[in-house]
């Protein structure tokens, strides 16, 4: 029996006429209204638009028969463009930006019958691991108000964990879907690089960025992935690799499946509680017939250094577009003091605009990335990082000759406190130790809830798979959820 999946249940209820799409959306909006003031998951709630859209679905039921996400309310991270609905990427730079087009992933959700109810908070331009770098709001972890929800897709994770919506879209560059999913006790999937079109995703690091689903179960994540995956004429990096119906892979069968465990990576720096939950998760998988194999990923310990050199370099280039000319913030010239000439030059406008529009973490990354790409340092930093990226990739290729997936904790510790790491960037970066390798190697990875810490905070484990083999990850995750009930627990904010 597959685990109870709220998205599927709601879709089935709407499809059978047990409830209307308007009922489903109204319930979501009322939970947002009641719970979100304390949670801070949403930056924009598009209530009227969502209800109008749901009414349209109800009015044309015949036309929408069989739609895979019929009437399902979905939240979308605010760095993914929604036509006519403000999209800020958590940045002052885009405080009033209203996209004139939909991201392909958003258009595909709507074509599948889903209803976008709002835009979720995130670290500015996806840069951060706690959602504290949002220029607009603080998101709290639904399990403990003094903890971060993780990041950068913290609003999407909190929304799903508090049952504001049964699923959400996030984006993942170095762990931004998986880490908040782990911190909030839900499932988060980063698809293979190229699996989902990035048209309309506000770019952070183009060789790494990927859109993916957050949901309560692997089954629900599979439903969403099936809808959003596939080639797109608007994104040349979106692969035309065939997209299967991912739920068909969820057989519950793990006999013959080999799962690699990079034990030496876990020797230091991982919380005892996290390690215990991870080992228990491995026992559950073995109990279903999976074979556990010890593997080595010798270069994985360098992944954080490599990631932050490459991601910041790409970010410094991508964020050059915020110049106060075509869209977003522009800071007009400062009034000149007595006897001074105001600098009204174009360059001064750029620099002033970027000073006011970007927050500290974004500036820090632009600085690091610009330095790593600058004359005299390019070979030593950027090119070097790209060469070590090759070594990391080869480690995985070698591992996948022996195993079907690699398992590790998603994070070395459960959710940290708000304010705890925000003034120590390196400390914040080090928490990404288990999540940065998959995007560097272009591989799909999923985080699955596997327990709770002594303080009652969720813990997740991660499975990384072969390129375009999300089906294997979803199958293992679903099999695990058939034997466990972690995903059925509800946080205290759940009233």
């Amino acid at each position, binding site marked *: 029996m597959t685990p109870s999946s709220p998205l599927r249940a709601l879709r089935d209820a709407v499809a059978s006429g047990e409830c209307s799409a308007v009922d489903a959306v109204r319930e979501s909006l009322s939970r947002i209204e009641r719970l979100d003031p304390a949670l801070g998951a949403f930056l924009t709630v598009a209530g009227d638009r969502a209800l109008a859209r749901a009414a349209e679905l109800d009015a044309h039921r015949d036309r929408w028969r069989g739609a895979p996400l019929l009437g399902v309310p979905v939240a979308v991270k605010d760095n993914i463009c929604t036509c006519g609905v403000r999209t800020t990427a958590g940045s002052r730079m885009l405080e009033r930006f209203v996209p004139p087009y939909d991201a392909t992933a958003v258009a595909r959700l709507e074509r599948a019958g889903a209803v976008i109810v709002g835009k979720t908070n995130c670290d500015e331009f996806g840069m951060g691991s706690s959602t504290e770098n949002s220029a607009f709001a603080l998101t709290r972890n639904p399990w403990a108000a003094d903890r971060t929800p993780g990041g950068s897709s913290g609003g999407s994770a909190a929304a799903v964990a508090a049952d504001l919506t049964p699923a959400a879209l996030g984006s993942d560059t170095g762990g931004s879907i998986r880490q908040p999913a782990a911190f909030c006790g839900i499932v988060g999937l980063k698809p293979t690089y190229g699996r989902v079109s990035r048209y309309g995703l506000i770019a952070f690091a183009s060789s790494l960025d990927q859109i993916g689903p957050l949901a309560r179960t692997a089954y629900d994540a599979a439903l969403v992935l099936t809808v959003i995956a596939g080639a797109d004429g608007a994104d*040349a990096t979106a692969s035309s690799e065939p997209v299967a119906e991912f739920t068909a892979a969820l057989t519950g069968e793990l006999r013959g499946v080999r799962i690699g465990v990079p034990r030496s990576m876990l020797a230091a720096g991982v919380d005892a509680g996290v390690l215990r939950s991870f080992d228990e998760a491995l026992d559950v998988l073995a109990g279903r017939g999976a074979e556990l194999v010890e593997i080595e990923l010798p270069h994985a310990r360098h992944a954080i250094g490599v990631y932050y050199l490459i991601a910041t370099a790409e970010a410094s280039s991508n964020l050059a577009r915020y110049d106060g000319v075509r869209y977003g913030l522009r800071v007009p010239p400062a009034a000149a003091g007595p006897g001074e000439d105001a600098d009204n030059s174009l360059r001064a406008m750029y620099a002033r605009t970027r000073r006011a529009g970007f927050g500290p973490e974004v500036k820090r990354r632009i600085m690091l990335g*610009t330095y790593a790409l600058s004359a005299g340092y390019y070979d030593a930093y950027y090119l070097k990082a790209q060469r070590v990226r090759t070594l990391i990739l080869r480690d995985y290729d070698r591992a996948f000759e022996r195993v079907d997936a690699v398992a590790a904790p998603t994070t070395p510790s459960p959710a940290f406190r708000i304010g705890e790491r925000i003034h120590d960037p390196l400390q914040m970066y080090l928490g990404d130790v288990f999540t940065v390798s998959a995007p560097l190697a272009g591989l799909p990875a999923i985080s699955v809830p596997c327990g709770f810490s002594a303080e009652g905070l969720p813990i997740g484990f991660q499975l990384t798979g072969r390129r375009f083999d999300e089906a294997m990850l979803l199958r293992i995750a679903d099999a695990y959820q058939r034997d466990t009930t972690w995903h059925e627990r509800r946080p205290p904010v759940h009233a």
Partner: protein
Amino acid sequence: MPSRFTTADIERVAQLAQLELGPEETEMFTRQLDEFLDYAAEVLAIDTSGIEPTAYVASHPLSDRDDEVRPSLDRAAALANAPDPAPAAGLFRVPRVIG
């Protein structure tokens, strides 16, 4: 260990990035970039002779399409988010560059 950065270095990088920094930011980034690069020194020490760089992990087959003209965003929509549009001319207005 002395910092590899001086204030002047940070200001040079900021200029390359078209960023204006306040004195506190300059001080903070000098320290934090140095800390990160200390940490990343282990990456620089890895022997990568004969190893090709990976710029991105190609996901073949890419979705190429025929190079045919398609409708694009209309001009009014493209200008709608501009901080200083000149809709009649169909242009973005910027501070004077020449003269």
